[in-house]
Structure formats: C-alpha cells, structure tokens
C-alpha cells in the first residue's frame, strides 16, 4: 500500500508540475464546452433564397413574404428569369431557387391548385434536405390557408384533412445545446481518460524511466494502478467541471440524478483507461500513441452517435458502434440528463461498459511485460 501511495504521489506531482498538461486538462474542456455547442447546431438557418417570380401577383407576393417570415430563409434576390437564378446557385450566392409560374394566382383561384418549382443546391446535403423540407412545409401551410379562405367549409369537411402536431418530449424546446453538451462532455472525458493515460505511460518508455522501474521489486499491478488512478480521478474532475459549465453556461440541470452519472462515469473511465493502457503497450514513442489516439478519436466521435443518429447508419456501421464505448456513454448521458433515466434504466449499458473495462484491462495487463 505504501508503494502505491508513493507512486500516486509521484504521478500527481508530475502531472501538476507540467503546465502543458494542466492547460490541456482544465482549459481545453472549458473552451470546447463553451464554443462547440454553439457551432454544432443542427438547425439550418439563413438559407439563401432566390425567387423567380413570373407572376408578380398578390398571391405570389403573399407566398414570398410567408416564406421569408418563417425566419429560416434570407431572400437574396428577386429575379424574373430562371437562368439568372440558376447562375446565383452556381455562384453559391443562393441555396434554393423558387420559381413561381406566370399563371400562379389565376390557377390557384380557378383550379385551386398551382405548381411551384424548387431547385435546391445539394452540395451541402444537410442544408439542402432540411431547407427543402422547411420550404415544403411552408408551402403546405400557405396552401391550407388559401383553401380555408376559398372553400366554403361545410359542417363536415368533404376532404378529410389531417393535421400533424408534434410535441417534443424531454427537450420541449428542441434546444440542440441540451443534446450536444452531454455528448461533447463524453468526448472530453474519453480524451483525458484514455489518451493522456497512454501518453503518460509511453513517455516513461521513451525517457527510459520504465526500465529503472522495472529493475525494482515494484509489482506489476502497483505500477498499473499507480498510472490508472490519477487519470481516473482527473476524468471525474473533468466531468465535474463539465457539468458545472453546462449548468452555468447553458442552464442544463440533469433530469436524472448526479449519482447515476457518476456511477456510470466511474465504470466508463475504467474502460477507457484500459484502452489507454492497451494503446501504450503497443507503442514505443509518444508520436505513435498520439497518432493512434487521433485515429481512434475520429472513429469514436463519428461512430459514437455524437453528431449523427446511430439508427440512420448502415447496419455494418451500427455493428461497429456497438464496440465503441463512447456510444454507450453518450447514450447514457443524454438519457440521464434529458430524460432522467435511473440507474436501473441504464443497467444494460453499465454491464456492457463493465465488460469493456474487464476485457481491455486484462488485455493490457497481459500485453504489458516487464521483460522483453
């Protein structure tokens, strides 16, 4: 026990003596949590619109003002030829072109239907799909408004009309920050837990101190625990700082209990520390460890459900996400913070993470040899 205590003392001393590490540990999460959630916003706004109005009627004007009043669109130009509009799209000055045909008002009044043409710049896929969807629902709404005006409603509507009204559970205002912040927090905890730990061990290899340690009677598990515990503690500190920032900056208060979050985080950190340890056993220089970490981080983030829902990934990718510990923590964090899930609700995820922790740590310990 005394040996472990001194190993820990030494480790903490080294960590707190390195200003770069301290900055990485404390400043990086703050910056990321304060900046990223504002940028990582799914809501598409400021879609640049070019309107080709061949009609110049009362209705076409009403239609355009309804579109711009929605707040999602910026009316960029108002032209009278389609070729000009398509040139605007080609020049990236507009995202969507709306063409209103010449007989728009007449057809609408007489035939009670009129075509509108939409051309969407699909270079940015998300913007194109969401923009077109927004626009379509506005057109639908406009159409219904007209019909309500024109058709004298009988007591029983001859055309059944279904109106869909949705209510957003657990995140009533559909605030994306509430959704993103827990996910980003997970990424931060992962980085500290696994990558700083692996870099730390590889540094001992690189400088040669591990050799000096290896000729001492220090036990394997003492050395490994001495490396894991400091980063386990740091991971929980980062989590605490992160939760504080998300409260102060975004007013996020977990709907579930902090206890659930910390229990899961404690288990999760065991798993990612095991991963860090495993990476360190394969690397002999910090550069190698760093590059492997970058590679893993990309996979973890993109296949972890942070930005894109896992359900929309192809089946093979969904299988990969099942072997990604980050997936589970993001899932659990969102469930606990937004939905208020209890420990019992996240038990399956907790078990999986404990299996991860067991497998990764055992693999790492087997791989870590005191003698070549």
């Amino acid at each position, binding site marked *: 026990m005394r*040996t472990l205590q001194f190993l820990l003392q*030494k480790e903490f001393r080294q960590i707190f003596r390195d200003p770069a590490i301290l900055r990485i540990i404390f400043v990086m999460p703050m910056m990321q949590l304060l900046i990223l959630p504002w940028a990582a916003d799914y809501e598409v706004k400021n879609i640049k619109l070019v309107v080709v109005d061949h009609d110049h009627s009362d209705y076409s004007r009403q239609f355009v003002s309804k579109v711009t009043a929605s707040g999602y669109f910026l009316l960029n130009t108002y032209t009278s030829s389609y070729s000009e509009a398509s040139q605007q799209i080609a020049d990236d000055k507009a995202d969507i072109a709306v063409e209103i045909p010449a007989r728009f008002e007449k057809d609408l009044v007489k035939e009670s239907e009129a075509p509108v043409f939409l051309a969407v710049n699909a270079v940015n896929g998300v913007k194109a799909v969401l923009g077109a969807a927004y626009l379509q629902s506005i057109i639908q709404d406009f159409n219904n408004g007209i019909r309500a005006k024109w058709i004298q409603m009988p007591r029983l509507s001859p055309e059944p009309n279904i109106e869909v009204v949705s209510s957003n559970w657990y995140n009533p205002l559909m605030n994306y920050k509430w959704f993103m912040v827990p996910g980003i927090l997970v990424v931060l905890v992962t980085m500290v837990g696994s990558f700083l730990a692996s870099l730390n061990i590889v540094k001992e290899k690189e400088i*040669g*101190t591990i050799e*000096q340690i290896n*000729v001492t*009677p220090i036990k394997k598990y003492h050395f490994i625990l001495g490396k894991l515990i400091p980063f386990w503690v740091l991971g929980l500190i980062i989590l605490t700082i992160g939760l504080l920032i998300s409260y102060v900056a975004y007013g996020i208060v977990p709907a579930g209990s902090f206890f659930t979050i910390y229990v899961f985080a404690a288990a999760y950190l065991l798993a990612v520390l095991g991963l860090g340890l495993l990476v360190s056993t394969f690397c002999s220089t910090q550069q190698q460890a760093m590059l492997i970490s970058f590679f893993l981080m990309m996979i973890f983030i993109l296949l972890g459900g942070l930005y894109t829902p896992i359900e929309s990934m192809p089946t093979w990718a969904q299988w990969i996400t099942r072997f990604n510990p980050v997936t589970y923590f993001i899932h659990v964090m969102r469930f606990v913070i937004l939905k208020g899930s209890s420990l019992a609700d996240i038990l399956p995820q907790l078990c999986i993470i404990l299996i991860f922790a067991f497998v990764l740590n055992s693999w790492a310990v087997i791989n870590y040899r005191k003698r*070549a």
Partner: protein
Amino acid sequence: MSAVSVNKLTKLYHTKKERVKAVEEVSFEVSKGELFGIIGPDGAGKTSLFRMLTTLLLPDGGSATVDGSDIVKDVKAIRKKVGYMPGRFSLYQDLTVQENLDFFATIFNTTVIENYDLIKDIYVQIEPFKTRRAGKLSGGMKQKLALCCALIHRPVVLFLDEPTTGVDAVSRKEFWDMLKRLKDQAITILVSTPYMDEAALCDRVALMQTGRILSTGTPTSIISSFASNLFTVKAEKMYPLLCDLEAWDGARDSYSFGEFHHVILNAQYDVGQLRTYLDSKAHSNVEIHTTQPNIEDCFMQLMQN
C-alpha cells in the same frame, strides 16, 4: 560463492534477414566485493549482458546467477538486491533531485536516512541542488544522482552500464574514486566501459567483442600474458611510416597509438632490423623505444586473433 556467476549466457536478436548474436556463450565469475570491468567497444554486447543480469531481458541460452539467485527463476529476489544504472540517464526529469531519491528509496521499501552513510560522499556533491529538477542538472551531476538512486537500497551487486561515457576527464576520475570507496563497503560492482584506460582501475576485467569474451583476468595478468615484443616508433612523417610498417614482414601488427605508432615484431625479428628497415625507407628522425604494453595493446592483439 561468487557474487555473479555467468555460464554460457547467450542472447539473440532477430531481424528480418538474420539472427544477430548479441551475446554468445559468455561465461565468467565475479567474486564478492570485486570491482569487475567489462571492456569492449560499442556493440560488443555489454548492455545486452547487463540487461540480462538485471532481469530486463530474457536470455536465449545459458544461465547466470546474481548473488545466488537465478536470473530467470528468481527474478523478484534479484530485483530486490541489485542496483542498475543504465547508460542513458533515466530518472524522472520533472522531479527534483530530492524527490527522485525519495521515490527510489520508497519503492525499495527503505528510506534515504537508513542508507545515507552509503551515498553520503556522493550525495553531498549534489545536495546544493536538491530542489532542482533532475532534467536541469549538468551531465556529471545527473551521473551522481543516478548512482545515488541505484545505491539507495544498499544493493548487493551494482551494475553500471557505461557510467563514464560522455563525461569529462575530471568527472571520470572522480567517478572511479567513488567506485573505489563503494568497494570498501563490500558492494560487488560490475562496470562496463568502452575506455581501455579504465580497465587498469578494475580488480579484474573481461575483454569483450562482438558478443564474446576474449580474455578475463586482472589487468596485470592480461598484460603479462601479452608475449610479443612491443615497440613505439616515431618519425617525421607518421602516415607513410605506418604504411611502411604495415607492409613489412617483420611486423606482426602495427597501429597508431597517441603520438607514436605501436609495432609488434614477429619472433625472429629484433629492433635492429626494424631500424635498418625504416632507414632503408628513408624516414627521418626515427625514434624507437621499448614499452610496456597496456590493456589497449592486449585488446588490439586479441581482436587480431
């Protein structure tokens, strides 16, 4: 019982194309309290040998015991009683001198105070810098700190891998004086070095090259076994002199040695023939002296055979 006993120890390194024999069937004995030097050029296998004896490498053949413990079976026992100072400074650069020493004392389950008498002579020299980080020390200071850390648990056998490489001449001399004093504490010391002149400072030496031990013995016995008649030769133009010596039948071996060339004559030749030969080659200001061979001469000769 000898402190270190090595019996046909072998270590192979596998590369894609070939197997390199880093240490090949090396055998020697070191008695208790002896200062034993392993002398050899870079790549002789000294570090591999030390790493095997300190349980950092597994041997591929042969056996060895350190203070009666087998280096393969009794790893834990050996780690408790040996001190190892690697050739490269490998203490925690971001910890201070004091912290490094405390740390290594603790992991050996001892304290600095307990064994202070052992390191006192060395430690007083670095004590003024005890709050300085190890990475910021000068080369000689680092060396002393590393020695302190290797000694802090009062090891039975101390392994020093090239402790004087890259250290200035004064510090080297100081370092050897320290080793002499440690010897008085009944600590067996194995030291490896590429410097031939340091061989004379050891009780016994083993000359090592390309994984083999060429000769073992006290420095004087190695020198006295050097049978040939050795002369130092000097002339106005040293390089043509060496070329001529190499071309001559009478010289078994010749090599430059400081400001002179050393020549070993074949049995049937004598110094007179050497002088007539050199005169016939029109060398001016020729000086020829008989000289006592030293370890380096022995090493050169052993390498030739």
